[in-house]
């Protein structure tokens, strides 16, 4: 018995060290993107919509670090605004989806019976529609509006939280520890705080990063096919489609939003790499 304990700790020691390095890398990437998106627009100080038709398709230089696009707009300034938009909207959508998703999941496994069946049916109904399609539907209702995308994203993301929270809280609620707590006179608030949240937190942290990454990608995909946000909004997908025709003469243009998108998603994936929760 001592042996197996030591075994586990030795193994997880090595594995968690590697995972910790990965998490640190992910955190650094995300932090730099966040700093860029928060302070970039102010520091660069160039209006991302200002056109200078005399300076179109300038290569990267001192005035414009990432050059200018076909309308002579600063790519760096547009990228900073796009990063702020993607990161902000994705996080907002993920958090908005997480709160009702988790609460409904806990309610479902707590109450069981008809309430649970109803909620599961609702979640399955939402799940039967591809997530992107749902966002598309809302995007069509109000083309180019932030709120439509935001609602569409949240509505497609909450189901995962619901399912995970329901599955993860069921064994906890059925366990001896919760039964003992109830016998000792503790109410639902205590069970939620002491038993459910500690069990759910690591899973939900992972899920939050995944669904934020999913939202970032969905936003870019919609912009790219022209049904998401509309020009002249600086947005990663829109920038890619705008730069695509110039990829031969100015390949650095399309490289910039693609690299930023990759960094964003990579950072989120690394942040939740597997290993023991810290």
């Amino acid at each position, binding site marked *: *018995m*001592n*042996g*197996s304990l*030591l*075994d586990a*700790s*030795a*193994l997880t020691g090595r594995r968690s060290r590697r995972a910790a390095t990965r998490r640190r890398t992910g955190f650094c990437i995300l932090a730099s993107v966040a700093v860029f998106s928060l302070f970039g627009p102010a520091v660069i100080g160039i209006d991302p919509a200002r056109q200078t038709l005399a300076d179109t398709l300038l290569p990267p230089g001192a005035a414009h670090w990432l050059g200018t696009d076909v309308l002579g707009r600063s790519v760096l300034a547009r990228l900073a605004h796009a990063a702020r938009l993607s990161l902000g909207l994705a996080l907002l959508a993920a958090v908005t989806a997480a709160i009702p998703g988790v609460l409904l999941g806990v309610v479902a496994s707590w109450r069981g019976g008809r309430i649970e069946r109803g909620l599961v049916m609702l979640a399955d109904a939402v799940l039967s529609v591809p997530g992107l399609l749902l966002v598309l539907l809302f995007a069509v209702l109000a083309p180019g509006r932030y709120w439509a995308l935001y609602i569409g994203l949240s509505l497609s993301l909450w189901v995962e939280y619901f399912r995970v929270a329901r599955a993860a809280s069921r064994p906890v609620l059925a*366990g*001896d*520890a919760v*039964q*003992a*707590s*109830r*016998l*000792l*006179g*503790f109410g639902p608030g*205590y069970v939620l705080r*002491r*038993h459910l949240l*500690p*069990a759910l937190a690591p899973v939900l942290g992972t899920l939050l990063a995944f669904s934020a990454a999913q939202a970032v990608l969905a936003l870019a995909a919609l912009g790219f096919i022209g049904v998401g946000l509309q020009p002249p909004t600086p947005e990663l997908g829109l920038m890619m489609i705008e730069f695509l025709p110039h990829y031969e003469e100015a390949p650095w243009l399309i490289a910039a939003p693609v690299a930023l998108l990759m960094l964003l998603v990579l950072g989120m994936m690394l942040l939740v790499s597997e290993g023991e929760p810290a």
Partner: protein
Amino acid sequence: MTTSSVLLAVENLGVHAGARPLLRDVSFSLRPGEVLTLLGESGAGKSLLAQAVMGNLPAALRAGGRVLLDGVESRAEEARARRSLWGRTLALLPQEPALALDPLMRIAPQLSETHELVRGAAFEEAEAAAARDLDAAGLAASARRYAWELSGGMAQRAAATVACAGGARVLLADEPTKGLDAHWRDHTVAMLQSVQRSGGCVVVITHDLRVARALGGQLIVLRAGEVVEQGDAQTVLASPRHAYTRRLVAAEPAHWPRRATVATGAPVLSAQGLSKGFGGKPLFDGLDLQIHAGDRFVLQGPSGTGKSTLGNVLLGLLPADRGVVRRAEGLSSTAFQKLYQDPVGSFAPSVSLESSLRDVAARHRCAWPGVLQQLERLGVPADLLGRRPAEVSGGELQRVALARVLTVRPALVFADEPTSRLDPLSQQEAMDVLLDALDERGAALMLVTHDEDIADAVGTTRWRFVQT
């Protein structure tokens, strides 16, 4: 004794974690048909010995000494040398056999796979052998079932059959009777004896002296990694020489003094016409009972006959199908409490024991120093409280659970096999502490136990559930 007739021999085997010895200087030799029992409290190094012989010690530990296995001699640290013998010469029956089986595979294919891949039989022959084995183990009807569909005893037999299918003649069994009732314990002992009779040898790790006595053969008593006594099982158990062995034998439930009955007081709970069943199968029907303060009510019977369910119905955790449970008037809603077989599972896993206890104390407006005093009386060291439940031994944690229950001043404690996972010494200590605390408060006890001797020593009223 010639080397050729020895099947398994171990010389000066030791296990170290860095410079710290966890197990020291163990030597024994077994010929075909012989058995060795390892006794000792948890943490004494019994499982380490088995792992060192197998060669699957954790990387952080270092083995020393020599191991002779079926004519092949190797140094203990050369684990690789023995790995090729796994399954074919050397088999391990792990703790919790139900977890050792593949949950995604039916029983028969698991067994025939072993015949085919380990023993090298042809496919058809392996299938036939598997069917034969299952038949012999009384599992013919369960061949197409999954591990989780089997009862504890059946999973035990299935795991043992798979472990032996490779033709291994040396079987290491790690606490094979843990949590089994008398019937399945005897069954497991018979299974081990059949390995012995067919010319194999068996090393059994246990803390059940009845298993040691039934198997006979050689015996090693371990304590804190050292051999305190070694010899013939019957002789050692009948006249132990070392003080620790004497205490261990004396702590066996059969030797417990019968507890004096205390004067019973007012009724705390009465039930009339209780019925409960699951999935149309009734567990009990039309049950009447009354429990008074100071009663020690013992429930016995095979697993799955409704002992725990009755407790849960009485505690109000499950609704009865029919009948009523009446609590005595004036009792608080937390007057009925429960102790669990696995105390680790009954605490919030992520917080320290101190936080858990402080929560209870705050909820019931008990002063914290009072709780600390209670813990001291129950023999719980104060430095334990900073740890999480999984980092404390079973015996100690059961006492913390008891302290937690006593904080709410219960009138009735339902204890579901509270000591069945402990070695005899910890078991006796934990049970004494529990009974003393309840007597002191005049609280009633409802005890579920597999153990006849414990029931004899403790119970004032005994009920036996039977298989219907």
